[in-house]
């Protein structure tokens, strides 16, 4: 190996001018629309998904406003049904499923493993365009009369109603490919593009989370695509598949639908687990307790997630024996999730805990996701689920998981990586206020819904019995607080783009590569030199010892101790020869 000598001798062709970064090296609109840079694609997705979240979130506020009184308060049943359907469809298929992988996965993952980009940059860009095609079809569905089927499209109702259903199912079919592209890209990237020394046991847990997610995306998404195609074929060609009047079976549709949509829950939550590990480790400056347990439990959850879809169907006509088996497997999947929560709490033990906004979101997540998990155990209990099924208890349960889990983790992750993405700091005080408002508003919105459901309030009701009024009003008030919190985030995020303080390269003193080896605003190719990885992702105790940096020495304007950068890997002769 003569690479060491070559190393110094070879001039470095991809060295950029000082001050050049991924945002300013090209600035035309076309350079954005045709970019193959994973960071820019992440930003494109970020803007698109923020718009979708805004639209779907406003629909949620409209729903809560309608439910502020038992009768019709501001819209007819039909309108309400369309509003809750669009809220669900947009939030699940167009926001939550792509959200963390497409935004933060794209932006962070290649940097975390020391790669220049993802394995297939063109496919990555194609994913965004395919997503846009899906979003366009969604708008067509709205123009064509809308959809009032709920996000589940249960047959035969979905066959009898509205003109928008075919457009909407096509939209989901198309948008699914965007997720498959992203998943495929990440799997190959993680397998083939890790920097020298980045062994599987040194992968940041966010990468492990994305890996588990990608497997589920690639394996499960085709099933929803096929199901949607079958729906369309049945409608257009009148082949009996799901519609009993043509000899089909509506319960079959539910099996197909949940065979995807249950794993989809893990597509939504596993990336959030990944973000949680990053936040907890960085802001408590300690190694993740039980790194392997967390990494492998993600993979275990991804696998078991394929075997529990029937727990959505305990009262829908599935056999009793199937229900019992599905209930049992459901409990097995609860265990790995529990392990993670315990591990994260244990990571705090004897750490050095810095309560910045991202950490506040991480702590919120621990509380909210725990409630989501416990209520999940509850609805997995067969006989109790009979009472709670299709009530607000379920609505509340999955909001605790999806909003209290995934969205809160995404918010934590956005704050955490905001300086790396934009080169600016957000306002810390406003950040903390917003995090507090979101936590309080969320619980005020959804805890009353748990009680409502247990008391027998069915979901998807435009109007309701008088005795549920007070709890509904409490929930509506909570949604207002939650809304204020989220708009505050939007406000100071936009403000910081122009007026925010310039961020240092590693404002949090984190130890993963995107902070230690990448400039404040990343270079178009991420790294000036491919790093050589010699330690684990959270080895704060080793960082200084291994790479120098004496005791008490501090850098950064807050006197923060920042782990040293990983050394550059020796260049491979073939690459530059």
């Amino acid at each position: 190996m003569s690479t060491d000598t070559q190393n110094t001798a070879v001039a470095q062709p991809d060295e950029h001018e000082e001050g050049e970064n991924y945002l300013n090296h090209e600035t035309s609109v076309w350079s954005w629309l045709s970019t193959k840079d994973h960071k820019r694609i992440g930003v494109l997705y970020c803007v698109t998904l923020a718009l979708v979240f805004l639209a779907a979130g406003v629909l949620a506020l409209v729903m809560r406003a309608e439910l502020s009184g038992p009768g019709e308060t501001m819209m007819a049943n039909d309108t309400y049904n369309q509003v809750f359907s669009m809220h669900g469809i947009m939030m699940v298929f167009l926001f939550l499923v792509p959200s963390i992988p497409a935004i933060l996965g794209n932006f962070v993952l290649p940097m975390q493993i020391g790669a220049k980009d993802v394995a297939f940059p063109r496919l990555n860009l194609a994913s965004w365009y395919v997503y846009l095609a899906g979003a366009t079809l969604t708008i067509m569905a709205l123009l064509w009369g809308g959809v009032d089927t709920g996000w589940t499209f249960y047959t035969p109702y979905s066959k009898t109603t509205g003109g928008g259903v075919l457009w909407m199912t096509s939209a989901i079919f198309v948008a699914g490919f965007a997720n498959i592209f992203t998943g495929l890209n990440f799997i190959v990237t993680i397998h083939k593009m890790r920097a020298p020394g980045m062994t599987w046991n040194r992968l940041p847990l966010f990468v492990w989370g994305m890996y588990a997610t990608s497997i589920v995306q690639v394996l499960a998404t085709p099933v929803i695509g096929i199901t949607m195609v079958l729906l369309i074929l049945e409608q257009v060609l009148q082949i009996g598949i799901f519609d009993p009047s043509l000899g089909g079976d509506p319960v079959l549709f539910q099996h197909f639908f949940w065979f995807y949509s249950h794993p989809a829950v893990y597509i939504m939550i596993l990336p959030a687990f990944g973000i949680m590990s990053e936040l907890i480790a960085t802001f408590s400056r300690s190694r993740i307790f039980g790194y392997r347990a967390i990494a492998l439990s993600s993979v275990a959850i991804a696998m078991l997630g394929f075997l529990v879809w029937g727990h959505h169907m305990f009262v829908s006509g599935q056999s009793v024996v199937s229900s019992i088996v599905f209930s049992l497997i459901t409990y097995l999947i609860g265990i790995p999730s529990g392990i993670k929560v315990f591990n994260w709490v244990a990571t705090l033990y004897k750490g050095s805990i810095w309560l910045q906004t991202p950490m506040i979101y991480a702590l919120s997540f621990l509380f909210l996701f725990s409630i989501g998990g416990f209520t999940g155990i509850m609805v997995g209990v067969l006989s109790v689920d009979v009472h709670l099924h299709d009530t607000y208890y379920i609505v509340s349960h999955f909001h605790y998981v999806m909003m209290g889990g995934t969205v809160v983790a995404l918010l934590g992750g956005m704050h955490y990586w905001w300086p790396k993405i934009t080169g600016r700091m957000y306002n810390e005080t406003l950040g903390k206020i917003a995090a507090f408002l979101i936590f309080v508003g969320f619980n005020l919105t959804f805890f009353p819904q748990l009680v409502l459901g247990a008391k027998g309030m069915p979901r998807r009701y435009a109007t309701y019995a008088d005795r549920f009024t007070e709890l509904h009003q409490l929930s509506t008030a909570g949604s207002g607080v939650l809304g204020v919190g989220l708009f505050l985030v939007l406000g100071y995020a936009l403000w910081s783009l122009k007026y925010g303080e310039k961020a240092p390269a590693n404002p949090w003193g984190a130890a993963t590569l995107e902070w230690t080896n990448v400039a404040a605003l990343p270079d178009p190719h991420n790294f000036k030199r491919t790093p050589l990885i010699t330690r684990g992702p959270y080895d704060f105790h080793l960082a200084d010892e291994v790479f120098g940096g004496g005791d008490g020495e501090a850098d950064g304007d807050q006197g923060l101790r920042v782990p040293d950068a990983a050394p550059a890997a020796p260049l491979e002769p073939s690459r530059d020869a």
Partner: protein
Amino acid sequence: MGDFWLPEAASTIAPEVDSLFLFVTAVSAILLVGVTGAMLYFVYRYRRQSPGERPAPVEESKLLEISWIVIPTILVLLVFNWGFKSYVKMHAVPSEAYEIRVQAQQWNFLFEYPNGVTSDTLYVPEGEKVKMRMSSADVLHGFFIPAFRVKYDILPNRYTSVWFEATKEGDYDLFCTEYCGRNHSEMDKVVRVVSQDEFDNWLEEAGTSEDIPLPELGKQLYSQRGCQGCHSLDGSEMVGPSFQGLYGRTDHEMSDGTTLTVDENYLRESILKPEARIVAGYNNLMPGSYSSLSERQLTGLIEFIKEQSDKEPPASDQGQTTATN
């Protein structure tokens, strides 16, 4: 704690479901307080004192890790077993159960008793095992009585069933819990639990007597068979055309642009074959299940609709009107 969470319990299975619900809630609350308490304590106890702080690594403890795998596993297996047993009980319908047929359609439930009596209020005797044999005329529906803690979907292509034994007299809610379209939230009925004697009396009296006048019969059918869900009597706009002033209209416009006069035969066709002609501005949403009405019921319903209009009978009905009476 039960009153805070759960509605009134009025069936034999309810206490079992409730104790399981409250057990899981209590254990969850304890664990949640434990996890959150530990988290908050650590956050305070190990808060960062100086920016350059470097905590020593914590040794992982196998014992701790194994204990937080094993203990939750035991707990969930316990609740699984408990829930599984009561679920099986819910699904093992006793052979002696009294059977009531449930016919669901958008957006109505109709209950039919073994002697042929139909009702839009579900009367059940207290202290007797009752089985509901359910089917749907159109889309999926759900049958949910919160006070009894029973629920099951109603399918269009096969029977499903639930059974219960009511333990307390009174009126309870019955909700549809599988989303079924526009008036899903209004698809609710009253469950009336009465003593066995009262039930027997009601069943006897409720039998549709043969000599009830036709418009009376039609009025009964209007509310029992769910017509009221889509057709108003006061002219207000619903899913289907209002019955007010309908009969005798001479300018009734269809979706293909033609107009016709609303006479008895038009009404008859519209009930039996609703898809044959669609009124302008409306969709083909009416279920075809009304073709199973008996001749007498059909005529009764038409007479009732005729009463909702003060227009002159159209010429096409002159000379036939006496025949139907």
